[in-house]
């Protein structure tokens, strides 16, 4: 099929404009992080720094144990993601491949919990955490968000599209439930799992309010918690905020760049499915 040239032009144009809109604000933040405070407050603002300075970064790093926060964030994000993938996929499997009493009810309840944002149940949730002895531990911020209804939702929707014939065939061959889950359904769900992985990494990395409530010792702070400290100063040190922000975006950008190829592959492979 011959593609009309003008459509291609529009596609490129729109994509280009969209990409610019997505990147430009962040680019501006990155550039601003190399500006001195006076230049940041200049009217009219400059785009490229007139003078490139690195003291925003060195100053921020000197004041705070950034590597420690980084480690905490990494540990929490990875562990929480692994846990999320495990229990969400198990739940999604049950909700999509079985018929049992209470199936719809449970799914509705799960969807319902999507509607209860943390801001609203903060106090009672913390009480629960403390009673379980999870206060001020990294596990206290790993476990509670792991049972995310969004994850179950995404995985279930995807698992619904997996043909039942494969499963029936496996049953006839004598495979037990767990084997069906682990060796047939899970691999086939890879693209959705990849999506959930990326989301979970992002959510846990950016979690702020919940870690703030649970953690009260500096040695357990995550990066976002540390970033938030700047909000505590009456005068927001914009130049430090910008530098720390850029540093906090770097790891997740890198991880995403790596996983994104896998994502594309995953999505592409489903297109070939008969």
């Amino acid at each position: 099929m011959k593609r009309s040239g003008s459509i291609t032009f529009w596609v490129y144009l729109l994509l280009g404009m969209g990409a610019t809109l997505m990147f430009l604000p962040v680019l501006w933040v990155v550039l601003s992080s190399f500006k001195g405070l006076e230049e940041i407050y200049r009217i009219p603002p400059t785009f490229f720094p007139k003078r490139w300075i690195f003291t925003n970064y060195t100053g921020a790093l000197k004041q705070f144990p950034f590597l420690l926060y980084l480690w905490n964030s990494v540990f929490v994000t990875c562990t929480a993601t692994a846990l999320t993938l495990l229990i969400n996929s198990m739940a999604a499997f049950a909700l999509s491949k079985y018929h049992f009493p209470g199936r719809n009810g449970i799914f509705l309840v799960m969807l319902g919990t999507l509607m209860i944002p943390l801001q609203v149940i903060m106090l009672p949730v913390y009480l629960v955490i403390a009673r379980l002895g999870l206060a001020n531990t990294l596990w206290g911020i790993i476990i509670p968000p792991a049972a995310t209804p969004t994850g179950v939702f995404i995985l279930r929707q995807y698992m619904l599209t997996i043909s039942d014939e494969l499963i029936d065939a496996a049953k006839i061959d004598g495979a037990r439930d767990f084997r069906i889950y682990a060796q047939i359904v899970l691999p086939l769900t890879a693209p959705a799992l990849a999506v959930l992985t990326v989301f979970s990494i992002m959510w846990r990395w950016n979690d702020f309010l919940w870690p703030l409530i649970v953690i009260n010792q500096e040695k357990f702070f995550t990066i976002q918690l540390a970033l938030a400290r700047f909000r505590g100063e009456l005068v927001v040190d914009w130049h430090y905020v910008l530098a720390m922000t850029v540093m906090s975006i770097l790891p997740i950008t890198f991880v995403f760049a790596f996983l994104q190829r896998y994502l594309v592959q995953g999505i592409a492979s489903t297109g070939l499915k008969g």
Partner: protein
Amino acid sequence: MKRTKIPLAPYLFLLPNMVVFSVFIIVPAGYNFYLSLFDTSPFRPAEFIGLGNFLYLLQKDDLFRRALENLVIFVAGDVGGMLVGSVIIGLLLNQKVKLRGFFRSAFFYPVLLSPVVVALVWQWILNNQFGALNALLTTLGMKGTPWLLVPHWSRFWSIFVHLWATLGFYSLIVLAGLQSIPAELYEAALVDGADRKQQFLYITFPLLLPTLMTVLVLSTIRGFEIFDHVYILTGGGPGTATLMMVQYIYRAAFQMDQFGLAASASFLLFVIIFLLTVVQYALGKRREAI
């Protein structure tokens, strides 16, 4: 008549997830409802007033009604934008163009940023004196506007910034949905002489509907829960033009010390979202293929 045995397996698979749910969401939510039946104060024991808080909110509290109004406007714009935007972007990203990977990263990038970062960045861009947007407009010969100080602009930008930060997420979902449509269907349609518009209307759109249902349900729920982005961007202003429900609750609980009232408001919010979701789910079920 023999009854089919209820399988044990699904319950076991569900168990870990449900335990975490119950302990960390359902039990606290129950306590929250319990709290909503009381008139609380830091200085005296709570008084049981039954539905008193609810009646107050619905009949006498102008801020509550304002927050609800604002929220409905926000969700309408936000979900609408999300549906249209994610389809357009999904379609664009599905095209066979060079640098496809780059473009996908580009749209997903803002999704990676924390709401704090997103809001600060845009607050800075929209700043009346130092902002990049007004600077751009003045160099083009137009006048700058105090964007976040004009009520309808403030509402517009709240929606825009949230879309900016979230479209990539839903676009990926739509993209996955688009890619699961078998290519043979398009090939067959071509053979039958269908043009692009017909292909879209009769193949793409119908098969994309389950995905769009996902987008609709998720974005509606998230829309009603909006807080971080808007609160940091506008503070709910100017005046109360962008005061949303979660901010109302937050203010009642932590700035006005009225825990019982806050609990009631959050319960009402929950009810609204719950009803909407049930309706959407029921409508969606009729269209679900499997």
